[in-house]
């Protein structure tokens, strides 16, 4: 049975806000913004892309220990899930990846625009060079604010 069901897939692959967390060998965490979330067909792996200029520490952490987590939030409803796992691939985006990244960035910008945020401000949040991170999902948590936040799904 896939760890990530269709509802979670829709959130991960939608125009969500994406955050990526890693930690160093001495347990110092690092937060990054992610783009272009995608779930494998079998529902057990997740791909995200992080801005290369901002990713040095995060990528170094992943090379060190492979631990990675990503939080996906629909900013119009605050529905949110966090997927924790182990990285199996770090590298450059491949053909077709930019369609996913650009599509998600466009959707995110549109949602932010509906909430009153100017487009230029959202555009300034990303870089044109990214690093691909692919990880096997081990745990999924409900991250939606409220009494169930943090509950394992």
């Amino acid at each position, binding site marked *: 049975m896939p760890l990530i069901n269709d509802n979670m897939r829709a959130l991960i692959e939608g125009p969500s*806000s994406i*955050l*990526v*967390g*890693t*930690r160093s060998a001495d*347990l*110092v*965490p*690092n*937060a*990054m*913004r992610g783009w272009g979330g995608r779930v494998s067909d079998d529902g057990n792996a997740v791909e995200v892309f992080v*801005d*290369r*200029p*901002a990713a040095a520490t995060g990528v170094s952490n992943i090379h060190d*220990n492979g*631990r*990675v*987590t*990503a*939080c996906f*939030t629909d*900013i*119009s*409803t*605050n*529905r*949110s899930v*966090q997927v*924790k796992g182990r990285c199996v691939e770090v590298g450059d985006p491949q053909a077709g990846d930019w369609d996913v990244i650009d599509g998600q960035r466009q959707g995110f910008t549109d949602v932010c625009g509906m*909430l*009153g*945020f100017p487009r*230029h*401000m*959202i*555009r*300034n*949040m*990303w*870089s*044109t*060079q990214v690093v691909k991170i692919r990880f096997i999902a081990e745990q999924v*948590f409900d*991250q*939606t*604010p*409220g*009494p*169930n*936040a*943090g509950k394992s799904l």
Partner: protein
Amino acid sequence: MTAPRFAIPLADIDDCFQGIVPSAIASSSPEGVPNVTELSIVYRVDDEHVALSRQFFSKTIANLQANPRASLMLIEPQSGRQFRLDLSYERTETEGPLFDRMSARLEAVASQTGMSKVFKLAAADICRVLQCAAVPVDHDIPPPDRAPVDLKKVDLISRRITSANTEDELLSISLEVLAHEFGYEHSFITLVDEGEQRLYTVASHGYEESGVGSEVLFGDGVLGVAAQRGETISISHVPSDLTYNRTVRSGFESTAEAANIEQEISLPGLPNVYSQHVVPIEARNRLLGVLCFESDQPGRFRFIDDFVFHLAAREIGLALILLRADPVRTTGVVAHLSPEIVEAAPTAQLRHYAADDSIFIDNEYLIKGVAGRVLWRLLQSYVEERRVDFTNKEIRLDASLELPDIKDNLEARLALLRRRLEDRCAFLRISNTGRGRIRLEVTRELTLREA
């Protein structure tokens, strides 16, 4: 003490702490499992500390208690610049001035969405900032304009507010000068009523409907919580805050707490409000009212505006105290008969309900309470004696009005009455005819009836 040597001083990114765009925080368990989540509010405590708001027990605090390091990402709402802060958790506060300030904002929005009994700030987690640096991007992002406050304008505001001769003048001048000098287009003043249980709107600027006379109970919504707690409350993205609370609300609706969820309160003021800044008007440690600014732009009010708001609120508070301390500026009673009524309009029917002193004009509600009682007395004098000129002193001393506790508030009530009449009635006006003097202007025949 020297300021910490961060790549970016925290004071330079104050706008990141407005709570417009959620922040990101990453932590790690002692076993090495990272956690990352959005964080709705981060406060800057001082030049080297931030406070994280916590409403529920979370994995983040569990991690921080075991492994104090955290990575916080902030976004500057005007520019989109991002900043990464390396943190070390120091302590948790569940009371005290910082906790009170943080919880007032949360409580205010919770109250607005009927969640005041179930959604509260659990704790403020205080972290030391070890480093603050810009998150690198592959293009230049100019920092937002951070023009300093123009002290000439501040001086002008202070002079205009403190030069008011009456409370009525004070209320009008204050909002006008703030709009003119700083472009605060939508604002209103509410004052504390005699029972110190509610606020009533006494003056407004920039709204289609003045809203004068509307009331808010202490503890209800943003205004009521600001009054009850005596705290400034700034909300920079009202729709996001409301959506966040409604999400939490739906989470509680399937729990035992559902019974404690109350009705949402409709927002006063702008229908499409994004930014709302509410400042208590205080003097000599006493709450006199609340000053509210609104905008249909997200993040309209920045930290620099906060300075102006507080200065204006303090000046208004002091001016109110001074004007109320010297309320009687004329002696004797001036009696004038009404001029001939020239308008050939039908007689207006005015009804008074003694139970709450509400007054209806031609079946339309006008006003109630103390202001209603005072108006009824003026109208009776007018109908019986055709008298139109009155002094504040005689109103204060009029035993039939039974107003022993309103000596502080009479001028404000008269100001409210004047504005309500302007809003709701075409043929009655109250004008100021000098210090401590008012005139009732009537342009239709009246019939008064006790209901």
